[in-house]
């Protein structure tokens, strides 16, 4: 089971990283989403894998670690999920504006064919 979780995280990371390195804003957003799944699972995994013992205290079940899953990573993941959502919202909107303002959905706001800037010769006069 550990292997399955680890490999799942690995696949998510690989896919996320690959998409993160794409040139289009939307692909990058997808990549970030996948990466955030991966991180959530990873943090969650830091509490180890426990099946069927949610950390909701039940009467007559002694509150010790053997009987419940580790609640702390779950709380951390919750925070992480929320923050990731907030960030996604922002990046999505930036992507929209990027496309609207610069007429390109390239991550850098322009297609790479164009040179990044006018050369120094244009900007500098002959005055050294």
């Amino acid at each position: 089971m550990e292997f399955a979780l680890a490999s799942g995280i690995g696949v998510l990371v690989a896919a996320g990283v690959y998409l993160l390195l794409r040139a289009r804003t939307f692909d990058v957003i997808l990549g970030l989403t996948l990466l955030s799944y991966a991180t959530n699972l990873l943090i969650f995994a830091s509490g180890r894998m426990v099946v069927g013992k949610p950390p909701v205290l039940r009467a007559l079940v002694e509150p010790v670690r053997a009987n419940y899953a580790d609640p702390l990573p779950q709380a951390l993941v919750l925070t992480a999920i929320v923050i990731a959502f907030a960030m996604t919202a922002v990046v999505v909107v930036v992507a929209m504006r990027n496309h609207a303002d610069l007429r390109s959905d390239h991550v850098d706001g322009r297609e790479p064919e164009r040179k990044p800037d006018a050369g120094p010769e244009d900007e500098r006069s002959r005055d050294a």
Partner: protein
Amino acid sequence: MLLLLLALPFVAALAIAMARGASRRTVAWLAAAAPVLGLGMLGWLTPAVMAGSELREIVSWLPQGGLALGLHLDGLAWMFAGLVLGIGALIVLYAHYYLAEEDSARRFFGCLMLFMGAMLGVVLAHNLLVLVVFWELTSISSFLLIGFWTGRQDARQGARMALTITGMGGLALLGGVLLIGRVVGSYELDAVLAGGDAIRASALYPAILGLVLAGVFTKSAQFPLHFWLPQAMAAPTPVSAYLHSATMVKAGVFLLARLHPALAGTDLFFYVVTTVGAVTLLIGAWYAIFQHDLKGLLAYSTISHLGLITLLFGLSTPMAVVAGVFHILNHATFKASLFMAAGIIDHECGTRDLRRLGNLRKYMPYTAALAIVASLAMAGIPLLNGFLSKEMFFAEALEAGEQSAFRVAISIAALLYGVFGVAYSLRFVHDAFLGRGPRALPVEPHEPPVWMQVPVAILVALCLAVGILPGLVIEPVLKTAVAGTLGEAAPEFSLAVWHGWNLPLVMSIAGVLGGLLFYFALRRLFALHDAMLRTWGRHLYHVNVEKLFNAAWAFTARVAAGGIRRSLFWMIVVVLVVGSAPFIGQEASLLGDLPAPQPMPALGWVLWAVLVASTLATVAWHGKRLTALIVIGATGLMVSVAFAMLSAPDLALTQLLVEMVTIALMMMALNYLPKQSKQARTPFRRWRDALISIVAGVGVAGLAYAMLVRTPDGAVSAEMLARSLPEAYGANVVNVILVDFRGFDTFGEITVFAVAALVVHAMLRFARMRPDEVMPGPPVQLPIPADLTQLLFPLALTVSIYLFLRGHNAPGGGFIAGLAIAVPVLIKYVLQGARAVEATFGFDYVRGISIGLLLAAAGGLGSLLFGLPFLTSGHVDLHLPVIGSLPLASALVFDTGVYVVVFAGALLILSTMGTVRRRTLAAEEAA
């Protein structure tokens, strides 16, 4: 007293800067007041200095760092201070007449005073760091002065070049001083001079020497860094006269003199300094001869003289030092006067080109007379001051060093110097004042205002006085200065014009004759000179600086090109390096002893398969965006179910809700983005990225696996489980952690959420954008689903409240509930349209966020009333008559804040995004 002396010029500068609207005359008076007053003070102090006592004042600045504003006045400092103030006063007088109407006198004199102060600081400094401080200040103020005529390209270039070179030297000097401080343990001059042996013995000595000399050589324009000085001649002439003959360039040799006891006395010092000095001496002189620009000639001759002084200090014998100090004085007097004369010529003739000048004695006889005397002093003609120091130099050169070959070389250099010196002095005198000419001058030359001649006359008189009566006029001064330089090692000497027939005198005579010959052979030599190296230093500098700018630009542009992807790429590369480095050589430690893994339930495999397949499908379909979005929905679902399966119901709930809202958000965004990704045809990049991502995936999987198979020990959560119910009154430990144990995290988290909503709002509120593709027709009606929501909406709200209230004891809580309420409202938006919802709903989301945040803060701050820390939860059981017991935890207030923030934030995001088009249309209609 010293502090006051030092402060004078700065005060003057400040006064000038403040004196807005003051007349030129007032400004000049203000500027003159400083050096005149200063001279007065110096005069008052003179007897004490001459008596050999040393004044010292120390103001604490940074005692821990050994930095104190320590000033002292010994002989050397006294001499230099006199030089700085005296010539300064003359320069102010001169400049007042020199400056044109359109030049800003305030700016000029302000900078000049700044410079004067800095220079005084250099000479008075007792702490080497303070010396460095003022040293750099001279560079900066000279930058401002050289670039005074900002409109002129050569002025700007010259200023920058001077700043670059001297700034470089200053930084090197700083390094050297720091190293000295390290060796000696103090920056105080006493200690440093006393620690000379320690310095010379230290392993750092070569570095120290190199760095300090770098400072000295750059400031004093020594070969090969001499080229900035001729360039600096673009400055107004008073500046050249002051900075580039009398004072600033002397700072270098001053430092050499200052640190002489500490640094000199090794072979390294001897050979480096003498060689550099000698080469500079010759090259400067040689170039001086062939300059057509009057100031160029003077500049190169200055370089040459500075080389001479350097050479003298390099020789290091006591008498050589005496000669060096003496020549500093002499050179300052005659060169300053020559510069001023050149300025007069420039001023009155409109040109400084020697090829166009000539025969000026007819037009300006007094000036001519003064200049001729001064240049004779420069040539080292007897009865003038230059002669004396030159003689001393010849005498020292003949005895230099232990090796005869070196001695011969130095002597030949000295002789050549004599020849060249006479030659360029002749060229100055002959080409400007004698011979034929002038040719094609823009104006008719005439005598300048008399007050412009006065400073020149004073200096020339000094030349004569020293040259004729050295014993009377200059000997006490020199002795005082030398005593300050060498301390107890100062030699006994007496100055006299006539030493009898000896080798130096012969050399002098040979020099004069050689110079005359040389001058008359000049025409032929011009070709030789042209064939020789051009002023390659400057050329090299320009090429290099230009290259530097372009290269720096190209480099940074190239490195920064590639934008986000390159950023991310590098980060991932760094991560991979950091992630793999610790395992190199100990691969075994990654997995350690593996305990048996837990068995996998069937559901696990299904989840795994769906997760992996949908993830890979997302990658495969990422170009088709809607498809990718739908497929990634399945990934999210699987992650949630995995959470559920692995005993994390709260996570599953949150993940699901967030997932759904995210998808809604992306769908809204997709409307304003291209529907498909353009696929770049860069297979290399794709393979490279694929490779990295696989490595990253494998790496993270490995780490996760290694972590998972280790048995945890000592995690703090065990205690949380135990204390959750009795102390925080909650059975759902995750929620208890969120609102109690780690409530502060949640506080931050909702802030993030709230701000995200505000950012979205801020970015889209006034944005005008149109979708790429607009479906024809009016908004579509979906009556049947809309009708269904009439039934579901109140139920969904109820579910939300249920989740909220149950949160502390069962999965749920403020966050989950907040999103759960946002979802049905969003459905309303989708099915009924934004206009309908917003017109009737009447809820200001921004204000909602604010209220929520304040509620959460209030929930946390409540405990402060009881003197308990922020977010300490309280708990009461209310017993009401009919209803029964009502458990109330103060965490509930906090959680309510969370609830409100999340609900309002989510809706602010969704409604802002959903209504972009409507606002755009409205704005376009209004326009």
